[in-house]
């Protein structure tokens, strides 16, 4: 009984933190319409700042608390709102997600640059003081966490129902236009939403950090608190605060009981990952339980001119040029560069899968590298560490099947839920499978061979690079052919208006599942080729953060064009190479690159390739997007 109570206490305490995280997410999301994927990153940054002030500079903890919670977090919120977020109100899910993912990478990059990896820990508040309840020893810190969470819940309820600015925050959710007419400024409300969200994130980060006995302050762990937060928030359908709070507590309890009672019943190597896997399982269960959202007429017309789609002749012409450049490059590039460029081209194929699912169909997937890993893993198993065309085919089919299953629970819901589910899936797949020595021993690497065509050897690195370049252009031609086909037109239609799509007799759910499965399959092809280069799949290559980076790079270069895919893939492969030649701050370079992406995305939906002056001056026939002749702006209703 005492054991049970002990786990219950642990569950309630971590549940209280998750509840605070989730509440912050919901407040920001409902008031601004932007789902802040960087919520955990804000918590992380605040916890590290607090550590810096109290542990490194020796500040009084009360002073540090005030500085972090009431100065740093609000200022950061205002800065982020002013620079990026305010351009996103009313933007598509894809755009606002990309920007908040970019913010996540910036904060992680900054933190990596400022606080190089070492063991850091924060002491508990009133460390050493405990109370005993039913024979369970509870620390003062744990009591404080729970009390703070309760105060937050009560305080928010009073604020949102009785304080003028709080009521305005609730009103903006219902009808921003009406609120504006009533004299309140939606912009000011949005700012309050960001400040409150950042404040709650920072609070949660500081409260949970002392509880992290094993890993100490950990950038990844804290950043990924966002997954726990939204898993809890889904219980409240990302809107309802009391349910969100309950979701947080439920998640905390589920995690504590799983940690307490599952060991012995599950593979031994999964035990250490229970805290990562619980929120993911919780999330998928919650997704299944949440009632499906009705299709809604969005009443918003896509106004951006899409990049012109190249014809078959143009795409073949562009492909020949592309392969010619690749062949030429093999004479110029040195050994290690050949390998990186080859992997970049393979990542380009994974990026093409993003063009299909996100660029065309508007469904955000944040787990494409997981499919890449699955494709390579299946190849390794089928071809016993070598390579065979059968392995490719089976790998592609497995990816498609897994893709369909992963997307299934989220398809009944709006686009955001798919993004949330895929991020969680990527996370679970990495910790539960790829980095897990029960499944992939030998330091997380599985041997994978190189595909080849009879008569042409791909064992040389240069030959293999050309082989992968050819594979890329074939996939690109295929993706463009899909876009020109009946199905491609349908995907674009689905993206523009799911409601109208359904009124023509087509099932949005089925179409989403098909495109998701197809893109998973394409990512699997990329994975087989990617792993063929170093002759192994490394677990680290399929981390969730790597998926995020790829998505952002492709977005930066243009997520609706195959050229964007090529450049995005290459950038994702080459940038780590560049940062390894830089001094200590080089590790944060990816964050900076993401920042550039963010600024672009907030202004130009089609990325670098969509910037008119660039495209006008540099145009590769067949692969660069050509902008349709400019026509007058849309007429308002």
């Amino acid at each position, binding site marked *: 009984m005492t054991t049970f109570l002990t786990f219950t206490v642990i569950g309630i305490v971590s549940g209280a933190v998750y509840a605070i995280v989730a509440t912050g997410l919901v407040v920001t999301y409902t008031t601004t319409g932007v789902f802040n994927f960087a919520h955990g990153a804000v918590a992380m940054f605040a916890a590290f700042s607090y550590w810096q002030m109290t542990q490194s500079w020796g500040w009084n903890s009360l002073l540090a608390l005030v500085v972090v919670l009431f100065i740093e977090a609000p200022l950061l919120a205002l800065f982020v709102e002013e620079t990026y977020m305010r351009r996103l109100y009313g933007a598509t899910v894809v755009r606002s997600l990309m920007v908040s993912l970019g913010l996540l990478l910036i904060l992680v990059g900054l933190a990596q640059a400022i606080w190089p990896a070492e063991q850091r820990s924060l002491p508990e508040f009133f460390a050493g003081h405990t109370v005993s309840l039913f024979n369970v020893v509870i620390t003062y810190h744990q009591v404080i966490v729970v009390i703070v969470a309760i105060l937050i819940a009560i305080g928010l309820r009073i604020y949102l129902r009785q304080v003028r600015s709080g009521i305005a925050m609730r009103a903006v959710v219902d009808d921003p236009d009406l609120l504006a007419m009533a004299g309140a400024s939606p912009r000011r409300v949005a700012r309050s939403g960001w400040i409150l969200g950042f404040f709650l994130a920072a609070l949660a980060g500081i409260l949970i950090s002392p509880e992290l006995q094993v890993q100490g302050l950990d950038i990844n762990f804290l950043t990924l608190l966002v997954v726990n937060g939204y898993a809890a928030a889904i219980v409240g359908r990302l809107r309802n605060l009391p349910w969100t709070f309950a979701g947080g507590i439920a998640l905390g309890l589920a995690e504590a009981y799983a940690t307490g009672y599952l060991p012995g019943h599950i593979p031994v190597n999964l035990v250490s990952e229970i805290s990562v896997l619980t929120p993911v399982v919780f999330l998928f269960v919650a997704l299944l339980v949440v009632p499906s959202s009705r299709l809604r007429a969005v009443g918003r*017309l896509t106004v951006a001119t899409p990049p012109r789609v190249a014809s078959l002749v143009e795409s073949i012409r562009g492909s020949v040029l592309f392969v010619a450049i690749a062949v030429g490059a093999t004479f110029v590039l040195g050994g290690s560069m050949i390998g990186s460029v080859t992997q970049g081209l393979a990542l380009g194929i994974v990026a093409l899968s993003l063009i299909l699912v996100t660029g065309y169909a508007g469904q955000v997937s944040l787990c494409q590298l997981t499919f890449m890993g699955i494709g390579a893993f299946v190849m390794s198993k089928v071809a016993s560490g070598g390579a065979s065309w059968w392995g490719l085919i089976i790998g592609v089919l497995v990816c498609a099947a897994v893709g369909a299953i992963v997307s299934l629970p989220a398809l009944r819901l709006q686009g955001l839920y798919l993004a949330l589910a895929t991020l969680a899936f990527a996370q679970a797949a990495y910790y539960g499978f790829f980095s897990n020595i029960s499944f992939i021993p030998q330091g997380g690497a599985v041997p994978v061979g190189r595909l080849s065509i009879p008569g042409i050897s791909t064992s040389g690195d240069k030959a293999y690079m050309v082989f992968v370049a050819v594979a890329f252009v074939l996939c690109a031609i295929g993706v463009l052919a899909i876009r020109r086909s009946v199905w491609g037109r349908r995907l*674009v239609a689905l993206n523009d*208006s799911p409601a*109208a799509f359904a*009124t*023509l*007799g087509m*099932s949005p759910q089925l179409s989403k599942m098909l495109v998701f499965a197809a893109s998973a399959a394409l990512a699997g092809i990329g994975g087989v080729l990617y792993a063929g280069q170093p002759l192994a799949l490394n677990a680290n290559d399929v981390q969730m953060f790597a998926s995020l980076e790829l998505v952002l790079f492709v977005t930066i270069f243009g997520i609706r064009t195959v050229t964007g895919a090529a450049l995005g893939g290459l950038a994702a492969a080459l940038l780590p190479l560049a940062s390894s030649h830089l001094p200590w701050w080089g590790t944060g370079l990816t964050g900076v690159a993401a920042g550039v992406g963010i600024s672009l995305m907030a202004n130009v939906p089609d990325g670098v390739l969509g910037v008119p002056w660039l495209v006008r001056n540099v145009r590769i026939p067949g692969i660069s997007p050509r902008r*349709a002749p400019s026509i007058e702006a849309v007429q308002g209703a």
Partner: protein
Amino acid sequence: MPEMVETSALEVRGVSVTFGGIAALQGVNLDVRPGEVTGLIGPNGAGKTTLFNVISGLQRPDSGEVLLDGRDVTKLGTNRRARLGLARTFQRLELFGSLSARDNVQVGLDARRDKGDLTAQGLLHRVGVSADADRQVSTLPTGEARLVELARALAIDPKLILLDEPCSGLDDNETHLLGNLLRELADEGRGVLLVEHDMSIVLTICDRIFVLDFGELIASGTPAEIRRDPRVQAAYLGTAPDPSEPEA
């Protein structure tokens, strides 16, 4: 026009919808017969669009039933209802903004199992916007964009078509042409349900009219009956009917 019709193309029985305690629709009954243009009028906020959403499956009613061709479709999704021959347009445009007008219609044609002999160009011609077939629809003026939406709805060869304010954004001449087109559609045996604020066209082309006010059906009948109905005059028309206006 037929006096007695076997089954209604659409029958709405006792539909109620509440939003946060406020009744948007209360026990609404309505039917649309094939071969007729049926009007649905009422002041802003009367619940017309909500009713359209209930009929097309975008809004689940709290109670009540929707029948298409005598078949209860209340539990079916939007796409299943479309397959049974229901098409609609939207008051706030729901076009595929990044596609051309032609491709918008083509998506509708491609959705059909049997293509028939309709072409996108032919449908655009029919609604009168064939000249702009290759323009991206988000660059079209609102009136024209509405007509593209109508052409797209016609692409699935609907038995019943719901039109949500198709005339807004059209000039008098275009409105007149659209009126003729709606009559033609009815004469082909389709049921047409028209929400429109332009009373002259409603009174001219509709066979029957239903009047919604604050979520309740307050009157129904022929245009002549509707003009005379005092509650309609009070709630909607605001003034006594103008005798100089033509009878339907």
